[in-house]
């Protein structure tokens, strides 16, 4: 007979868990995992004007077109994910001192890592939802039903304060052992803080923090020499990466490209394709803006080819064989390859005539056996972003000059491979407003498809324009008799409502103290 007192054999109980450093680290690892998801890096582009979601209709598309209500799945999922991560952080902070077999110094460092993660989660929450419930230790069920929203500014002030506090505890990337590659560094705390200030348009603070990084006081960072290969697994942990989400073969992998890469490269379908608007934002290699008189893709900023697959792009398959990708409806698909051609906006093929190339490392070893499950670390903050933040902040404070330009935009264009001509390299003449457009355009192309554009169009308050004017795809539409741009419907992004997400409806049912954002 089985006795009445049984205990689980495959799980630790509270009595047996907090006994070793490894087990404590394991909780920390979970928090790292909860900090970022590759799904959001891709889905966030759909929230912007960089790509058009043609296949099916994602939550993000509903948000971008202004038809999302308080029960939208993304509103709920992000809220949930952030507070789940925060709970892991609080569980760690409340219990890690029970682990005696761990040096005090290591404990403090681990706590600082988890405080960074918690701050980054609150930063997400405050950015999407505005005022949010904010607490720094685990709350009870009763508290969760009465807690109120703290003003966004107060939450962000706390985020800044936390990031500043842990920046002095955490090692710089050089101080970490190689085995710790990928951990949160003091440099990452400064960079995230700069990003948090940027989202608040607090230019002075952006400058202060960027300067700390540009001055190499929190680890030394520099641009990596090759833009395309920056997103290849062989170059993980290069000098440009400040923080990246970690992936390891064969089981800690991400697979989103299977819905974005060219069909001929083994993708399942094209969930969303880059828009003509994004393609158009790439300059000519000599620094001029592209005009209709130019060939569609020749002599462009090389980052275009490194980021987007267009009609006539070369593609190297996993066996190293190069072929030409044809997306034009009248083109001829490379022999032996499935078609990548545009066949209409609601099909499994591209809705815009373009596919993704960024992150599509051609090395077979990056993937699990030929599929799209990738071990490439996904950058969260890279040094190029720091330079762009710095340039933007300087210009906003009317402090842009050739010194700042050469330190920032010029370096990015040099690295990108622009012609070494004044029109491409030198500070353009123009008003602050004209320069603003140049810098913003540079930011868009440099960081394209990295899930960051949505934050920019919201803080610039341009979402209400760029998301409503209708999207275009390549000149593949023949319904008028001659080829014209593919016309794709825009949305109804509401200035008074859609800059903040709705507090999830289910939350407000259970907690009457939670107010709703305007318009929902």
């Amino acid at each position, binding site marked *: 007979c*089985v006795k009445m007192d049984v205990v689980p054999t495959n799980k630790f109980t509270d009595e047996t868990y907090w006994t070793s450093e490894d087990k404590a680290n394991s909780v920390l690892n979970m928090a790292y995992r909860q900090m970022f998801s590759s799904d959001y890096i891709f889905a966030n582009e759909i929230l912007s004007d960089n790509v058009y979601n043609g296949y099916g209709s994602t939550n993000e*598309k509903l948000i971008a077109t202004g038809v999302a209500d308080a029960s939208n799945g993304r509103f709920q999922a992000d809220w949930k994910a952030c507070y*789940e991560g925060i709970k892991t952080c609080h569980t760690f902070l409340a219990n890690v001192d029970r682990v005696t077999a761990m040096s005090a110094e290591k404990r403090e460092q681990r706590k600082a890592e988890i405080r960074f993660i918690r701050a980054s989660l609150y930063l997400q929450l405050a950015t999407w939802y505005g005022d949010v419930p904010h607490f720094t230790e685990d709350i009870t069920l009763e508290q969760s039903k009465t807690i109120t929203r703290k003003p966004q500014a107060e939450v962000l002030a706390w985020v800044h304060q936390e990031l500043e506090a842990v920046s002095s505890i955490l090692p710089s990337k050089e101080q970490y052992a190689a085995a710790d590659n990928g951990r949160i560094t003091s440099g990452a705390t400064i960079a995230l803080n700069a990003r948090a200030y940027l989202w608040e348009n607090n230019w002075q603070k952006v400058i202060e923090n960027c300067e700390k990084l540009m001055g190499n006081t929190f680890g030394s960072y520099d641009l990596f020499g090759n833009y395309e290969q920056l997103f290849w697994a062989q170059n993980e942990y290069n000098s440009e990466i400040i923080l990246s989400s970690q992936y390891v073969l064969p089981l800690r992998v991400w697979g989103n490209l299977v819905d974005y890469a060219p069909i001929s490269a083994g993708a399942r379908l094209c969930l969303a394709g880059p828009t003509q608007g994004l393609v158009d934002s790439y300059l000519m290699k000599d620094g001029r803006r592209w005009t209709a008189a130019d060939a569609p893709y020749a002599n462009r900023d090389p980052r275009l080819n490194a980021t987007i697959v267009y009609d006539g792009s070369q593609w190297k398959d996993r066996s190293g064989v190069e072929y030409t990708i044809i997306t034009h409806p009248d083109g001829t698909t490379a022999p032996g390859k499935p078609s990548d051609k545009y066949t209409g906006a609601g099909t499994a093929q591209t809705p815009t005539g373009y596919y993704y190339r960024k992150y599509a490392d051609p090395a077979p070893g990056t993937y699990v*056996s030929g599929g799209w499950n990738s071990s490439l670390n996904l950058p969260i903050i890279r040094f190029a972003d720091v330079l762009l933040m710095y340039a933007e902040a300087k210009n906003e404070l009317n402090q842009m000059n050739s010194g700042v330009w050469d330190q920032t935009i010029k370096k990015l264009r040099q690295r990108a491979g622009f012609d070494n001509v004044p029109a491409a390299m030198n500070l353009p003449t123009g008003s602050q407003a004209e320069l603003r457009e140049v810098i913003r355009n540079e930011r868009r192309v440099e960081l394209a498809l990295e899930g960051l554009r949505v934050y920019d169009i919201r803080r610039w308050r341009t979402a209400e324009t760029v998301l409503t004017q209708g999207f275009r795809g390549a000149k593949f539409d023949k319904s008028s008799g001659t080829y014209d741009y593919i016309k794709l419907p825009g949305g109804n992004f509401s200035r008074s409502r859609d800059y903040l997400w709705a507090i999830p409806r289910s939350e407000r049912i259970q907690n009457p103290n939670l107010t709703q954002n305007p318009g929902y």
Partner: protein
Amino acid sequence: GSFAQQVSLTEKRVGLEQVFREIKRQTDYDIFYNLDMLQQTQPISISVRNAPVRQVLDICFRNQPLSYYIEGKTIIIRQKPAATTLTGAASRQTSVSGRVTDQAGSALPGISIRVKGSTNGSVTDAEGRFRITAATGSVLVFTSIGYQSKEVTFSGQPELNVQLEEDRQALNDVVVVGYGTQRKASVVGAVDQVRAAQIEDRPVGNVMQALQGTAPSLVIQQRSMNPNDNTMNINLRGISTFGNNSPLLVIDGIINEDVGAMNNLNPNDIESVSILKDAGSAAIYGSRSANGVILITTKKGKKGMKPTVRLSALAGSQNPEILVKPLKGYQNALLRNDSYVNSGANPIYSSEQIRQFATGDSEYFLKGILKNGFQQNHNISVQGGSDNSTYLVSLGYYDQRSNFKGPDFGLRRYNLRTNLTTDIGKLKLSAIMWYDRNDGKSFQGDNGFLIANSSRLPVYNNYVLKGENGRYYNNDVLTNGNPLMDLEQGGFIQQNNDHFQGSLNAEIEIFKGLKARGIASLDLRPENRLIRRFYHPLYNLSGDETPVNIQNSAQYSIEDYNGKSTLLNLQALLDYNRSFGKHNVYGLAAFSNESYRQRRFELRQQLVDPVLGIPTTGTIFDKTSYNTVGGTTERSIYSWFGRAGYNLADRYLFEANFRYDGSSKFARSNRWGFFPSVSLGWRLSEETFFRFWKDKLGDLKIRGSYGQLGNQAVDDYQTFTTYDIYQDQYGFNNVSLPGTGYTFGNPDLKWETNTTFNIGADATFLSGKLTASFDYFRKNTKDILLTPQTPLVLGGAVPRANLGAMVNNGWELTLNYQLRHSDFVHNFGVNLADSWNKVTRFEGDEQISKSDEIERIIRVGLPLYSYFGYKRAGLFRNADEIKESALPIGVSPSPGDVKYVDRNGDGIIDDNDRFVLGHAFPRLTFGFNYDIQWKGFDLNMLWQGVGKRDMALRGETIEPFHGGYSFVMFEHQLDYWTPGNPDAYWPRLTSPGTASTSNNYGKGSDFNIFDASYIRLKNIQVGYTLPTAMSSKAGMRKVRLFVSGQNLLTISKNTFIDPESTEFGSSMNAGGANSARNYPLLKYIGAGLDIEF
């Protein structure tokens, strides 16, 4: 039960019937007599103590016109063969002999035969034969307990064969109840009984299918007809808890872990199924009885029975029926173009392409992956017994082929059973050995996606599943798969599950009326599952030589699962049953332990050798694999239980039951729970003032019960806060690391308690030809175990707690009627039931869960998981109407788009405008069976249905060109809005992803709600039994041939969907919304043969 062969009795001036009842109660003799005969007798007085039966009988028949004789354990009462035959007109008397059989043609021993109006009588022997002398023109009356008496006019022929009908409503029928049996007349609980005849010879896959429609309130929903995934819901008396609503299953006195275990049985081995519905009958099963109890008893041999061999064979075809009808290809293309043009986008297909589609359609892919499935079922059994032993040995084989094309998919089940009993003096021993094996081979992927990937395609002639060259092709709907390739080449899931159950039962009488019983049983389940998944090249129809899925060419994987579970059950029981004059007292006291232990391990590997599945270069061992340490579960229940009963003169009945259960699932302080019940019954028809009823109508009993039942269906180890380590959650420097998640436990967990009140009546009318039972119940469940709905801000990980309450009401009605005229015998059976539940307490007051666009609400005052959403106010007719109407945020509709009801009148359609839209649990469930016999022919049919149910559907079946994932439109969607069809049912066609489409199809409204009531001809059978004369020449006692059909006719409002389709499980648990991606409806046609010798 175990009986001594001695009788103690003290009675003054008592009728013989009463004495016979005592003899039956105290011994294991059966007594055959008819009541008419007893009317000739005088009351007797008797006082004996431990007297042999013969002595008692001698006292009884002293100075009576009757005598008796004993054959085996059967006492047969007959007229004294006095000098009557010598009197009167002896010359006209002729001798007649013959054989009496039942409807199935089996011999009936012990039938008494009497010449009406005389005292002349006889009794059939063990082979049913008799001989009697009677005058031509006189009437012979054949009577026996358990059979309806029959009168035959004797025409002087030398041989007379008579068939007797079973008397289904006999009050002396024995009903199996918890830990014992009772006479039907004295049952005070709400108990339904299903008999073997309702189950045998039906082409069903398992017992649960066979029970559908046979008993009121036993609601069985067959969610999938896939033989490999026969998902069925089983509920008894509706929904009473948020948690587990499964009834408890007891087979031959042994409690099973899972109600699904009934499907391990061979349906042909079942003797009877008792369904215990109320607290009075179920409380003896204590902490697991809240949802009722299903007691299955298997067949046994009979003492003194000659070896009887029964063979049955069934074979037929299960034919899939596709309920949706895709449009013709060109028509589909035109309408798809319309949907884009209507949305301001460019058309998809050129006129050239449409012309091409119009040249002819390809086969619908859904049809292309299906085939007819062969089904066969063979049984052989041998039954019999000697004076002190009985035996039954049966073998069964069941084989149903899948309707999916592919390598030998389907299910085979093998059953072996031996049921033995023997008496060794005072000791009675019985042993049951039961072995079965289920061998299944099935599709290795998700069945829903398989159906979706074959039904979302229009019948365009450039979509090809498989070419003549054997190549499989992809297309722009399938992206990179092909359903036929996945079936035929993608691999398989192979399951080989053995199951053994053995139980030993010893019984001995300690002193008069008191018996001790011990039972030891072991249930052993070694289970094995092997999954293989293979790469197979998929080509583009353009003729490229490189497969489009070449990058997956290393994708071969293998998964192994092995598990073994044992359930050891020990029981010790004391049984008391004794009569003192008119007083009958009985009782039970018992102890039991059930110990369950499960050990499992699973190994999953990817990128293995294509042929052998062994590891090779690059093989990945999935770290979610686990060894037996990770796969061990143990639990234990200790129980004390008992019963006390008293009845006075078979008129006033009282019974009390209790069980005291301790479970390892709960922490020490909350471990033990006490579950009592009381029941009262009153047989009005036994009262002298109600004599008219007994005389004219039959029997009338009212009964009621009240008690508490428990539900401990909570996962193991829920009282502990646990940390789970998951592999490969993160990594540093390209080294993978584990991460930890946690589950908070709740040491305060305890049982759910269910208080049930039941009142019912059993009555017969028309001299017993019509019987009726009615029950009304009310169940109050409190302390329902649930994971509370908590704000997401809490971050998850909330333990389950006893936080909910529900009330559930309902009623049941059963009617049976028998009608005979000339050679016809008709039997009608109707059962009808309803239940309705209401949440009365829920932590957080309400919870709305959303799957895709379908919302379900738990709210105090509503039935559990009601559908929730917007209500349609028709389709917009013109721009003015749009201007004046409330709209959802961000939507600028056009005429033909859906208009919603602005419930609160605030001029905007938002969350506050939602309504309760319906309820998905079946109500007004019914079954109707009818059978008719005419000479050798028989016909029987079972209709089954649901009177009231709402179903929410979504996906391609509802929305043309659903979400851009589907390219197809079906005929049932053709009534869509156009300016020329402004009164359409469906909105105008719009392209996926547009605001109009999300307004029209994405909001979750009564557009998604469909009427799911139906009536279905579940089974129909036509048979012919060969005349005995013919079959006996071939050495057989009985030969019957029959044809049968299953699911041949369904009447429902929406013909594009199987009305049984549901996303909800037995406990109203839903994995997602119902996208109507069902395994096809199956219609069976077949034939069978029964032979007995």
